[in-house]
């Protein structure tokens, strides 16, 4: 159990438009759904109607991509007000976003842009996480991003930065084990070290996804099945956190709902911590595949 006493919701699926009719029509046996916050903030149309219907039957978590928690523009309180209202409407179990920035000077690039990991960024981001958590009246949950550059001005690793941020701002963590794998490939670090360094009692959720390997680098495309190495990282994370809310993301080339759900349910094989039995996996993910 995490230190925030946020529940283990089981194994969930990211809510996507192409699956609306299937979910409403068949009410599949899914533990919970994660909804992309921004898709539901400024609409009174079908997406909002569907989300509210689904929230009547399933636990919902809100996951954002535009909070820009590491950005240097002022915090957008209009956005936060709408987010807080949406969270109340759908009884969101928690609200998460990414360790990143999404634009400056009033612009939104609509990407999860990387932070330099140094003291200035840490102080800046921790202060903003505290402000947002106070405003939302719940601990913000921060996800580790995939990244494709490293800055010369970084003075610490991403996992040290994330651990320090969690400590200083008292936030929860959404551990994306696919992102860890992607970044470990792109930046040549050992993903096992990353998983082992994360404060396990702050992890309230785990993300799983597929990616695209271009040989020289990996892009976090969410367009495929989870690869074995990422499952191994998931098992390693579960061994540290205990059973934790787990979610499958699939955002491009999205197959039918049953395929996505079946991929998500593979996680159940690793969620046996309470019985003390873990499935056989390699001890460590092979390091630095490039």
């Amino acid at each position, binding site marked *: 159990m995490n230190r925030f006493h946020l529940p283990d919701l089981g194994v969930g699926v990211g809510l996507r438009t192409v699956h609306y009719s299937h979910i409403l029509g068949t009410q599949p046996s899914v533990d919970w759904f994660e909804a992309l916050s*921004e*898709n539901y*903030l*400024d*609409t*009174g*149309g*079908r997406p909002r*109607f569907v989300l509210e219907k689904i929230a009547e039957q399933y636990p919902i978590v809100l996951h954002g991509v*535009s*909070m820009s928690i590491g*950005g*240097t523009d002022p915090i*957008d309180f209009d*956005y936060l007000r709408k987010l807080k209202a949406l969270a109340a409407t759908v009884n969101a179990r928690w609200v998460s976003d990414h360790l990143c*920035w999404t*634009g*400056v*000077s*009033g*612009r*939104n*690039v*609509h*990407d999860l*842009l990387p*932070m*330099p990991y140094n003291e*200035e*960024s840490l102080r*800046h981001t921790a202060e903003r996480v505290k402000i947002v958590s106070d405003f939302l009246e719940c601990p913000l949950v921060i996800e580790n991003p995939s990244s*494709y*550059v*490293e*800055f*010369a*001005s970084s003075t610490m690793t991403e996992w040290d930065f994330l651990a320090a941020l969690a400590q200083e701002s008292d936030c929860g963590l959404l551990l994306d084990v696919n992102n860890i794998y992607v970044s470990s490939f*792109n*930046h*040549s670090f050992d993903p096992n070290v990353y998983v082992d360094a994360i404060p396990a009692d702050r992890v309230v959720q785990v993300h799983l996804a597929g990616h695209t390997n271009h*040989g*020289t*680098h990996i*892009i976090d495309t969410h367009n495929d099945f989870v690869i074995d190495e990422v499952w191994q990282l998931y098992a390693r994370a579960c061994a540290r956190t205990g059973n934790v809310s787990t979610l499958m993301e699939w955002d491009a080339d999205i197959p039918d709902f049953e395929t996505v759900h079946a991929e998500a349910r593979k996680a159940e094989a690793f969620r046996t911590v309470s019985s003390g039995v873990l499935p056989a996996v390699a001890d460590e993910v092979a390091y*630095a595949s*490039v």
Partner: protein
Amino acid sequence: MPPSELALAPLQEWMQAVVTHPGDVYEAAEAAASDVDAIVLPSKTLQPIQRLGIYHGMYMLRMVEAMEADYAAVAHFLGEHAFGHLVEGYVQRFPSRSYTFNRLGDKLPGYVADSTIKQRTFLYDLARLELAMTQVFDEAEAEPLPADAIGTVPPESIEAIRFTPIPALRLLAFRYDANEAFQSFREGGQIRPRRGKSWLAVHRRDYSVYRTPLSQEAFTFLGSLVSGETIGSAIMTFRRRFRRLPEQQELFTWFRDWSAEGLFAAIAITE
């Protein structure tokens, strides 16, 4: 301060300028006037400029994808290359300033009209139709007026009725038959611009978006009501415009259809 020690704010300004630059990543880095190699580290396989190029390349792909979602018919008519070029210019002039993509394309019709693009008058109409559809899709839901609501008003008060339209309603007048072109696109056919004035109501009912063609007379009368005129005032506006009064049968048919389509949310009797 050496570039590698850029403080957080200037670092983000620099990276955004590079990522959103309309040229290639080398031109972008040159325009941003900082030494990329001093700011970004190489990986085992990629140079700093190549790593930055991943973000640069994905930016425009995302913008085109988002705009194509809202302007699928415009994109289909122009083709991949021309639409991509249009979006490149558009987002330079009107970059996203919102946490959502939903309103990124709001200024595209005007941008097309002001451009030198071929068939811009037709594309302006087609873009306005697609914009109206996205707006109607996202508007607030409102309970439509019961079909018999007007029948409950005493005859002597009919002309004093003022309607409140549902939020999810847009009225459009075109110089081309944009609706016919859009329908052809929807059915997988070719989009052929056909000059000729046309009028359309775009509206939503039960979370589905509908396109209802209107006559010029119906468009004028409905437009008056939607803009807040009473029925009596709308009749006079109609008379000035068409030099005749609307016929009883016209009015009956219009109100029957508009009520069935749920275009009104409320009525009030003006004193």
